[in-house]
């Protein structure tokens, strides 16, 4: 097997809606090397969650995978029988969802839910409870044993997010998908959670797909960064390359905007003038052409293929053609 826990090749997805088809992901290539944290950045609606759900095979019912291949933990994800897929979830593969307010079952206590997900474990009930309490403690929830008796409605959004993180830590997964998990947290908690993720990687040799709006957080913990724009990977590469030598005009707009703001205060991506393209009718041009400051004739005519710039670093931009190394 390759050194990747996940290898996505040329993946395209379509949503069928009453207003017609939507194309949230097109020809996406992403690798998640074993033991690394890969960041996915992109504006809201760029397809980050869709990508995560595709890896979990939990896409909504109206989604169709129209092309591509995904190798996940050595298996052909798109052809895996449903039961085998379920066997991966919650053991070698785990996900923390974006919206903590609705991600927990409202009529089961935290403890019940944390016991439920350990159903495969041969440990005794007492051991499982101890393990759950321990996981809560690790995400900074005081008085963990008492909290296990309480229900989601009794916790704030930040607390619920930490509970979700604790639940995913019970598993010790080989690949953890974290979808905007720090959005609901304050700065101190965020630092704590980032620290946890790093620990998880060090301890468990696990990989993490870290989806975030927060470039500061991405710069801090990721090994690689994938930049998604309107359903396409416009650039990806090692974290220092992306932040120090961004090649795509979109990436440059993001990271060169104001370094101080990115590293500390901003929790949102910087605003770039222009509208996000409509995902219903995809132009044949470069997807960023309409907002690009350096747009050329060819950009409006042809969609650029990924150009390799350095080791593991590539971008889809006509400006880079010919500089290939």
């Amino acid at each position: 097997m390759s050194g990747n826990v996940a290898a996505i090749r040329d993946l395209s997805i379509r949503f069928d809606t009453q207003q017609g088809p939507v194309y949230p992901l097109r020809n996406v290539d992403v690798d998640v090397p074993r033991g690394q944290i890969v960041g996915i950045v992109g504006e809201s609606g760029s397809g980050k969650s869709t990508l995560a759900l595709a890896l979990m095979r939990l896409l909504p019912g109206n989604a169709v995978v129209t092309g591509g291949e995904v190798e996940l933990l050595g298996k052909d994800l798109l052809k895996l029988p449903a039961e085998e897929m379920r066997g991966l979830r919650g053991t070698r593969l785990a996900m923390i969802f974006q919206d903590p307010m609705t991600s927990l079952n409202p009529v089961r206590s935290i403890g019940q839910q944390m016991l439920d997900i350990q159903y495969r474990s041969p440990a005794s009930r007492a051991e499982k409870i101890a393990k759950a309490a321990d996981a809560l403690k690790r995400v900074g929830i005081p008085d963990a044993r008492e909290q296990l008796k309480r229900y989601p409605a009794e916790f704030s959004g930040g607390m619920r997010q930490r509970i979700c993180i604790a639940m995913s830590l019970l598993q010790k997964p080989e690949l953890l998908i974290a979808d905007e998990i720090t959005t609901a947290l304050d700065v101190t908690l965020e630092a704590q959670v980032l620290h946890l993720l790093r620990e998880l990687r060090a301890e468990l040799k696990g990989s993490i797909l870290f989806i975030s709006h927060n470039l500061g957080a991405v710069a801090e913990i990721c090994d690689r960064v994938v930049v998604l724009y309107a359903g396409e990977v416009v650039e990806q590469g090692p974290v220092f390359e992306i932040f120090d030598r961004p090649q795509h005009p979109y990436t440059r707009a993001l990271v060169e905007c104001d370094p101080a703001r990115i590293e500390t205060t901003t929790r949102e991506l910087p605003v770039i003038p222009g509208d996000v393209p409509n995902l219903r009718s995809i132009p044949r041009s470069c997807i960023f052409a309409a907002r690009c400051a350096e747009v050329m004739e060819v950009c409006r005519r042809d969609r650029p293929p990924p150009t390799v710039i350095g080791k593991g670093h590539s971008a889809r931009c006509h400006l880079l053609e010919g500089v290939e190394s």
Partner: protein
Amino acid sequence: MLLYALQRTGLAILICITSMVMLFSALKLIPGDPATIMLGARASAEMKARITEELGLNDPIPVQLATFFGRILQGNLGTDMWSQRPVTQIVLDNLPYTLVLIAAGLGWAALIGIPLGCYSAIRRNSFIDKFTAVISVGTISIPSFVVAIYLILFFAIELGWLPVIGAGERGDYLDQAVHLIMPAFALGLGWVGYLSRIVRASMLEVMGENHIRTARAFGLPEYRIVKSYALRIAILPTITLLAVAIGGLLSSAVFVEAIFARPGIGKLIVDAANMRNFPVVQGGVLTTVALFALAMPISDILIAWLDPRVRATL
């Protein structure tokens, strides 16, 4: 929680009081002399005088109302005009038959309807889903007395399998159960379809919620997700519905009891009304209203107990 329970019960009591006042005024509003209405035009003058005296009809209205309330608070619903037995006793004799009938009717409807709704939601557009959808529309719209009549025609008269009349021998539980089959079936039939549709709709909604996706993301088996994660939530609207249903069931029970000549509150009220036995009508109606009024707080409290979200807001 306790405060909430008290509030809900208080509301039920308020409903009972209001309906008592309405019931009392209804009798006052019937035009003409109440004694004449009860006894008929050809009753003798002294009989009328005796009845008027007995019912306290000569007292001023507020006094009558106060006596009325006072009596009811003591559990005294008056005296049957013909048999001279206390109405409370008569009502209590008949009440268990109605309660058993409703419980059996609703019970079998829930036992079949809820799993059917669940299945229809999970296997949407399957044969069973489409079949129940069609059958439901039919059964919901057929009144239970029509069902009752056809049941009698077929199972009792044509096949002779089931008894038609009464509630069975006292003390013989098997006989009573056999007598319960047709009335309970007639009463519950419409509710099977109704419950299955309601459960299906709320189940579909819940299965689309984010927390179900979370449960799946942890690899929980699907039957467990349905049972412990979805149905626990999808069942909640059904509980409220069932409480409201008690009202409809009580009135359907009137027909069903009359058709099967089964003792019960419904039949009691109908018979008493035919004979213009007003104290019994009053007692029967009041008991019915009280049952209905009590069902609401019970379901509210049950929901608060089952739903931590509701509990958190109390």
